[in-house]
């Protein structure tokens, strides 16, 4: 097992509400959601470079929309 380090995270009420909703929806702990978010951000950030887009596709409507990412 890798060594683990602890940090304190201060969230607003609104942020905490979203975190709790996501934890329930994803069947994860709040820590699990934050870790998943970190993994996702790193993965997407690695893929997005000039000339590339992140697109959400709705196959039933044959629609595509670009997801703007930092």
């Amino acid at each position, binding site marked *: 097992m890798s060594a683990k380090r602890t940090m304190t995270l201060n969230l607003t009420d609104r942020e905490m509400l979203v975190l709790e909703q996501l934890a329930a929806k*994803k*069947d*994860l702990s709040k820590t699990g959601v934050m*870790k998943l978010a970190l993994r996702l951000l*790193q*993965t997407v950030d690695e893929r997005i470079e000039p000339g590339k887009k992140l697109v959400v596709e709705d196959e039933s409507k044959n629609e595509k929309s670009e997801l703007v990412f930092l």
Partner: protein
Amino acid sequence: MNESIVYLLKTENSTFVKASLFDQVTDDHLAMWNNEWVPVMKKHAGDLKLKDAPEDSHWNWKKKLAQVEHLLSYQSFALVCEGVLQGLMIVSNVRSAKIQEQFGKPVVYVEFVSTAPWNRAEINKPVKYRGVGRVFILAAIESSREMGYGGRVGLHSLPQAERFYENKCGFKRLGPESTHQNLCYFEMTSSQADLFCQNMK
């Protein structure tokens, strides 16, 4: 890197032998792949028409690993038995489940998995060891549980392995997907994962 002790069936004398499952593929494992697997696979595939060659015979594990090893969303595994590399696997952990009852919840997704050429009946009869595929599915389930994903696992199967995942492992078949070269998608729920683990004991 962690090492877990697992067991493979050595067909030569029908005994279970200890094997080591590593939760990170190292340069030593890649050297074993390059020096021991590749020549056997090349010789076998070279004698066949392209359509008859093993579907993973062209996979370059060194390149695959280099693309993902720095990302938190990927994990690699190596299985070594009696000093020889027996299998390699790469999983990711940022994909969503597709079965209705767990739709949108994260799964551990098996990106790539291979067993050594001498463990394949189409190359070496009788195979040297049995159980590599099951050990890797168990590793994917354990990884899913450690992530808090409850054992949920998903994968797209090469045609040659579909029956193994559906019949031997208990995955649910969801059908071919055009976004993945029409490979069939399979997924395991938490309860199916529990059942698989019970059957492994």
